[in-house]
């Protein structure tokens, strides 16, 4: 049968395909982390890779996040292209020294002589009923740190393209996957393709309000846009795709066009991603905005376990819809 150009894959399959293709293309690419081999991670994202590439390139580690992340830095400096797997983004807390004081600074501190082409894949996202230590979205911390790049795919298509770019990048890249999106389906080309960092994607065009969203919040924003359309409000949904580098121009241009902007991110609402992006828009589109930029992030509380509590801590289609509606009425 003739090869088809594109087919539907889940987000998890897209991530796996990107890894498999890159590992075939470049034998220096290897993976290490906890239960990444036969188990294929608890989310089964890596299933099948150890069978194809062997334990030489897909290595199960002890529960030593700091240790094997540090090894990723050293391995990347000396010729490998490691993809380090940190099961839950909450465990980034254990890797911060290796990521921030080592990976992010080696190139600069060495006057540009050493490079750290490492990818650290991890997860974010709440509502999995996993409570406060397994539900955080800590990407703002890494976006704050010069020397790191931060990618946040929101679709299977972006996941494959951005991960390939991350693996080919000469710098340390932190790659965030929302664990609640792994089963999300979408079209993914079979062919090899990459998506450049620092280029936002207009996920939906609109006229009345700009909704800037990251990771799974893009799906939430698109759902809200549907609801808004029903009441005659045309929302433009923009996905920066990488928080660093950040495509300020596209965000600002959209806000100038619509004169209203909402920023939706699943990280804690204070001192995080929404503050940065809202500031960029408030400054860039200052003379065009009819209303203040609205920020929607996780409630400023540790993520609670109980469903009725957890559900109110993160932005939803409904809350984003209502915010946008309130907005456009004002304007």
């Amino acid at each position, binding site marked *: 049968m003739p090869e088809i150009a594109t087919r539907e894959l889940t987000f998890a399959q897209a991530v796996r395909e990107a890894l498999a293709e890159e590992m075939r293309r470049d034998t220096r690419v290897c993976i290490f982390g*906890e239960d990444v081999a*036969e188990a294929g991670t608890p989310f089964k994202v890596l299933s099948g890779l150890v069978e194809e590439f062997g334990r030489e390139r897909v290595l*199960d*580690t*002890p*529960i030593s996040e700091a240790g094997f992340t540090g090894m990723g830095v050293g391995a990347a400096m000396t010729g490998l292209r490691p993809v380090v797997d940190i099961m839950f983004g909450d465990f980034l807390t254990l890797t911060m020294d290796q990521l921030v004081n080592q990976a992010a600074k080696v190139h600069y501190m060495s006057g540009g002589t050493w490079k750290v082409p490492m990818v650290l894949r991890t997860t974010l996202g709440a509502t999995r009923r996993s409570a406060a230590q397994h539900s955080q979205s800590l990407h703002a911390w890494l976006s704050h740190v010069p020397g790191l790049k931060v990618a946040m795919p929101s679709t299977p298509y972006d996941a494959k393209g951005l991960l390939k770019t991350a693996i080919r990048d000469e710098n340390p890249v932190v790659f965030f996957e929302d664990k609640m999106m792994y089963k999300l389906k979408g079209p993914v080309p079979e062919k090899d393709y990459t998506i450049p960092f620092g280029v936002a994607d207009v996920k939906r065009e609109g006229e009345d309000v700009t909704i800037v969203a990251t990771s799974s919040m893009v799906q939430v924003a698109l759902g809200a846009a549907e609801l808004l359309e029903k009441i005659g409000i045309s929302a433009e949904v923009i996905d920066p795709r990488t928080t660093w580098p950040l495509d300020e121009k596209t965000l600002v241009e959209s806000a100038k066009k619509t004169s209203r902007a909402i920023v939706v991110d699943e990280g804690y609402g204070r001192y995080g991603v929404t503050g940065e992006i809202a500031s960029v828009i408030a400054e860039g589109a200052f003379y065009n905005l009819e209303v203040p930029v609205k920020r929607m992030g996780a409630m400023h*509380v*540790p993520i609670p*376990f*109980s469903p009725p509590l957890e559900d109110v801590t993160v932005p939803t289609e409904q809350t984003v819809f209502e915010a946008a509606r309130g907005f456009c009425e004002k304007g």
Partner: protein
Amino acid sequence: MTTATEQNKVIDGVKAEPWMRMYRRMVIIRLFEEQVNDLYTRALMPGLAHLYSGEEAVAVGICEALRQTDYITSTHRGHGHCLAKGAAPDRMFAELLGKRAGYCKGKGGSMHIADPASGNLGANAIVGGSAGIATGAALSAKRLGKGQVAVCFFGEGALGQGVLYEVMNLAALWKLPVIYACENNLYNEYTHYSETTAGDILARGPAFGVPAESVDGQDVRAVYSTAQRLVERARKGEGPAFLVCNTYRYTGHHVGDINREYYRSKQEEQEWKTKRDPIKNLTAWLIEQKYAEKAKLDEIENEVRAEMKAAVEFAITAPYPSPEEAQEDVYA
């Protein structure tokens, strides 16, 4: 026909009492976890849970050596520790279901049950995450002179976390009353510990000045007597200890881990369950010692089963917290 001395034993409540208590505790844990698995399969429990079935003798044997005012820290696989230290099943089930009546008002769930009344500093979903907390509690105990001891429960997977060695070194330097109780159930999730642990586990205590011992974690009597010795030693100000308890988890890493053949054999599971079950073995010993008749033990089991059913019912009918409560308890 039984001899006088044997006769005595049966009526000798004093001798029998602690063993009967440990028997009941182990049965409570076993049947509690049965209910948890049932709640999961009936889709009544949000999220997942890590069952302690098979490891009962470790928590029960060690906590029997503790006072109510002593401290423990627990893990993601913490139901057994909480129950052994004296938590009430009904409030635990309520927590597992995210109800307001739960130990954490529904905010913590299975992996975060804490209970000041029983000295439980809390379960922890970060592997090795409570090593510092337990050691700090031991520092308080020493400084405030309350004669308490802290027990830090953790799985052998936590041996991969460097912070464990940082605090062991500190506990040894400062002679703190803390017991590092390593539950070696052979697996870190889906990986055998031999693939993640080099060298000799027992040597990891002394390398940081902490004396180490290992014990058969399926034999509650052995666990209890060893724990008692180490706890009293710590209480006397003679410093920390590292206790490795060799044990086994009967079911999956969590309730959703059904197909396990790719990392361990059904036969291995069967052998542990049949030959080394801590409850079966204590049962046999209690009867052989004439501490209790089979009927009595079955009666206890039935009582406990009824208690667990009632506790689950309480939890199922208990109300959820109201959404506004999400914003409470962030700051004291």
